[in-house]
């Protein structure tokens, strides 16, 4: 209150506000201006997630490890599913990493707009930031669980090929594209139709069965393969297994199908989200 703080020296830009028609442009410039908000939202999500818990960040490890143990007992021990010669715990845990990322995006991302409705109705910021930061917050859990995978791989003496250094980041990118695409669609739909909230538990469960997490995609007969890989997560999980464990044949037509679907979901999701964005504050 003492000194008169000056108005920023740069020439102010003029913004025109008018009813938008048709397809809205993506407006990546605004997203760039608000990049710090993405960082803060991710930071807040991570920070708040384990507040007032006894075990704190350990939950990021406990959840996938427990799932891995249950899967190992049921599918590895009792049902003895084929794993292409890889010890079942490593086989399952490798798939649980991208799957965990995807589930976070599915659950947190889809609810992100509705959960922050006070922000949406009061303040302008690119709404894309909300589902985006939910997905990025999932990456922190991913990184923690990844340490456990490295330990498991040492224990079972599984060595990845040298090309893991560039194949894994590519498949991680594909996982993020898929997760973000689905989060964009569902979060935007959720603003108007809260049916999404009801459908999420079922959708998550169904999607898990449709993805080769507990089993190998090689159990699917050849004539159904292409149809099976219309599920983009199937491509992501197989890619992770191939990059880290060397299982399967590596990138082939099935990966192409999955990756194409992933990109289609993301691009269409971006446009759908942007076209609905202007109504968010009124309908939420």
């Amino acid at each position, binding site marked *: *209150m003492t000194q*008169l*703080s*000056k*108005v*920023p020296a740069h020439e*102010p*830009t*003029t*913004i*025109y*506000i*008018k*009813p*938008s028609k048709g397809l809205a442009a993506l407006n990546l410039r605004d997203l760039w201006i*608000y990049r*710090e*908000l993405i*960082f*803060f939202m991710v930071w*807040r999500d991570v*920070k*708040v997630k384990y*507040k*007032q818990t006894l075990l704190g960040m350990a939950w990021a490890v406990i959840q996938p490890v427990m799932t891995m143990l249950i899967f190992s007992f049921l599918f590895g021990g009792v049902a003895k599913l084929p794993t292409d010669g890889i010890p079942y715990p490593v086989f399952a845990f490798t798939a649980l990493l991208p799957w965990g990322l995807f589930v976070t995006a599915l659950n947190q991302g889809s609810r992100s707009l509705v959960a*922050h409705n*006070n*922000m*949406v*109705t*009061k*303040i*302008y*910021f690119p709404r894309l930031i909300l589902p985006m930061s939910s997905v990025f917050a999932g990456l922190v859990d991913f990184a923690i669980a990844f340490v456990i995978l490295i330990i498991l791989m040492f224990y079972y003496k599984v060595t990845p090929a040298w090309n893991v250094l560039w194949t894994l980041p590519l498949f991680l990118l594909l996982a993020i594209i898929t997760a973000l695409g689905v989060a964009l669609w569902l979060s935007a739909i959720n603003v*108007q*139709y809260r*049916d999404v909230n009801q459908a999420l538990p079922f959708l998550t469960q169904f999607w898990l069965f449709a993805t080769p997490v507990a089993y190998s995609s090689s159990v699917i007969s050849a004539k159904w393969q292409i149809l099976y890989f219309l599920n983009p997560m199937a491509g992501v999980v197989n890619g992770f297994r191939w990059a880290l464990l060397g299982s399967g044949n590596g990138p082939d037509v099935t990966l192409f199908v999955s990756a194409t679907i992933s990109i289609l979901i993301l691009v269409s999701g971006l446009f759908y989200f942007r076209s609905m964005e*202007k109504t968010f*504050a*009124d*309908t939420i």
Partner: protein
Amino acid sequence: MTTAISVKNIGKQYKIGAAESKFRYNMLRDVIMDTVYAPVRIAKAMIGKSDRRQNQNYVWALKDVSFDLEEGKVLGIVGRNGAGKSTLLKILSRVTEPTVGTVSVRGRVGSLLEVGTGFHPELTGRENIYMNGAILGMRRAEIDSKFDEIVDFSEVTQYIDTPVKRYSSGMYLRLAFAVAAHLEPEILVVDEVLAVGDAEFQKKCLGKMGDVAQQGRTVLFVSHNMSAILRLTQEAIVLNKGQMLMRGPTQEAVDFYLSSGQAQAGERIWEYGRCPGGECSI
């Protein structure tokens, strides 16, 4: 002088809720049914039997409002509840789009539509200052440099590392207002945020708003507190049922608003010896 805000014939139409439009909920089922019946409806509309429902479910929250505001001016907006004040501010701060009309805004708009937006109860006061600052559009460096000032202003120095869920509601609001008050956009949009804290703190808030106005920022100020409007603004507009009734010097606008019977509980509180215009007749 350059024009900071130019509003041209804007209007905002809202749908009235389900109560008006019997048994219509926004469910997927209805949308599917609507889609199925769409050809019937279109056919009806084409032969002239237009669906009446179409017009009945909408209301204009704001209609045909136009004004220009020069840089560095402070404009008050008065009107009863539901007059369209908040809708106008929401359009100017790009929270929602107008249904018709255009607005051009020169510079960054900071809005204090409600303080404490984005505050998370589990985070500490310190963490919330950064979070809230970022939400309001401040850069991290900017928050760093103003951090001490914000804490001082909020008077919660002692509890700055305590989760805000442990704060009293007064402390919570003071911290929230403190962050918002240290925003430095070219245009500041303020909606009824001065009803925060005790009398002492309110005085401080008014002082801060006065400072902001003197720094050459353009301010749009909505309040039901007529003495605050009179003290902080030179010019005001009166809104009623979405339409702009008048614009003029604050004194005239407030008189018009209070005398036209729009204000149900017209209240004017002058602090002792500080009545405006020197017309202390009481």
